[in-house]
């Protein structure tokens, strides 16, 4: 263990004077509760669409909100786009988790695991999202399920806003082709 320790996905940094810099907790539990209630579904669905793994999506959602709670006073409460912040944490949670356990997972699951049956979503929609190129899929998932505007998507993915807009446009065009014939003029067919 060096100067900085990672606890539940958050960094605690030991300063030279012996103090520690890091999360200061949450002094407004009600605000956090409201934030949590409003956004947990969005975060979960976004990560679910990215990973197609409900269990992993739940874990990433929980980790992200633990982080948001711990950093509420020092970061999230004053953040201009808290929902984008928590989505980014969840998104990267998943990535670092994937990286950390990559070798182990490779050993465990020889075939790529896409337990689509596990995700109770219209299989045609799932398949269409899955077949998008990764860049387009990431941008589209964050826009449609994360409900973020292109500028925030760019912040989450670390890309230029123009790139994200282009990818969104292509993703939508492609999905319109794949899902097209099942979309009536009004958009719903029930």
């Amino acid at each position: 263990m060096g100067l900085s320790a990672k606890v539940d996905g958050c960094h605690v940094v030991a300063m030279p004077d012996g103090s520690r810099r890091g999360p200061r907790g949450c002094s407004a539990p009600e605000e956090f509760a409201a934030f949590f209630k409003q956004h947990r579904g969005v975060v979960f669905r976004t990560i679910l669409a990215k990973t197609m793994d409900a269990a992993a999506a739940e874990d990433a959602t929980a980790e992200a909100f633990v982080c948001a709670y711990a950093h509420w006073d020092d970061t999230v409460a004053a953040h201009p786009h808290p929902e984008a912040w928590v989505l980014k944490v969840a998104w990267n949670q998943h990535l670092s988790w994937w990286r950390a356990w990559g070798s182990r997972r490779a050993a465990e699951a020889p075939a790529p695991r896409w337990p689509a049956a596990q995700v109770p979503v219209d299989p045609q929609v799932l398949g269409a999202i899955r077949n998008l190129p990764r860049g387009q899929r990431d941008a589209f998932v964050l826009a449609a399920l994360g409900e973020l505007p292109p500028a925030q998507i760019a912040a989450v993915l670390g890309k230029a806003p123009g790139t994200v807009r282009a990818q969104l446009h292509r993703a939508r065009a492609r999905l319109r082709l794949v899902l097209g014939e099942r979309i009536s003029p009004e958009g719903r067919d029930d």
Partner: protein
Amino acid sequence: MTDPARHQSEDPVTRRVREAFAELEPSVELDEIVERAAPYLRRMTRPAGRDQQAASRARAGEQRRGRLTAVRPAPAPNLGGEVDPAAGQPGAAPAAATARRIPRAVTVGGVKLSAADLAAARRRDPEAVARIYQAYAPGLLRFFVAAVGDRRAAEDLTATVFAAAVEDLPGFRGEVTKLGGWLFRIARHDLYDYRRRIVRARAEHPDDVLGEAALAEDGPDPQDLAERLEGSRMMAALEQLSTDQREVLLLRLAAGLTVGEVAATLGKTTGAVKALQHRGLARLARKLEPPIDREPQRDRPGRSERPDASSR
């Protein structure tokens, strides 16, 4: 982000995808979030040195936040390894000293292990090594059987763990209480080595799986077969968990480790272990209950998968 104007202007593709995912909610609750943040924040407020004043200041800050102290997790239930307080400090008042005392002995699987046993085992004293084996072998075997699903391979793996442990014990500097976590850490590494070997063997000879070949040597053992069949439904359900959830459940339930030991084995906080166990068990229960009156998925996506979503 939920303003109506944007929903009006949204394109049909986005609406279609949103509708497909609507109603899916995670089984993550607010209590869990707050509880898991608590030990993490305590770590922050704990002073770096042994400055008593800073300690009390930190405690006061914690109480001001109120919520944090209120949700301090209850002591973990002991499944297998039980800390034996009597063997620690014979004359100490139990209530006052519980927090500070370093237990000098543990009782695992009915076998009491003291610090002296550990010291003797470090010198490779056969009797002490045997006691450690007696204490931890059943748990390790259950862990491997649950993880591999093959009794023979599990026995081999258990033996390998102890061979490695006896070899490395002189290098183990922890207390007796940490021995379980240490052994299971070795076990986990051996398990991944084993799986990697299996995968490689499967890639090279697709028809001849290592485990299958070992079984075929002298016909399947009927008891073994029954165990495998009975376990197969559980194994299928375990497959559906996330890797972290599965590991926590295997270590907690199959191997019977305490929350603290599992946390030490996996390098997680106890709060994280408890949360993973909770969610893993909930998911397992959902997977194992018989699929009663499944509604057509097109109408109400999500409902058939999560019957308890509305009640939580």
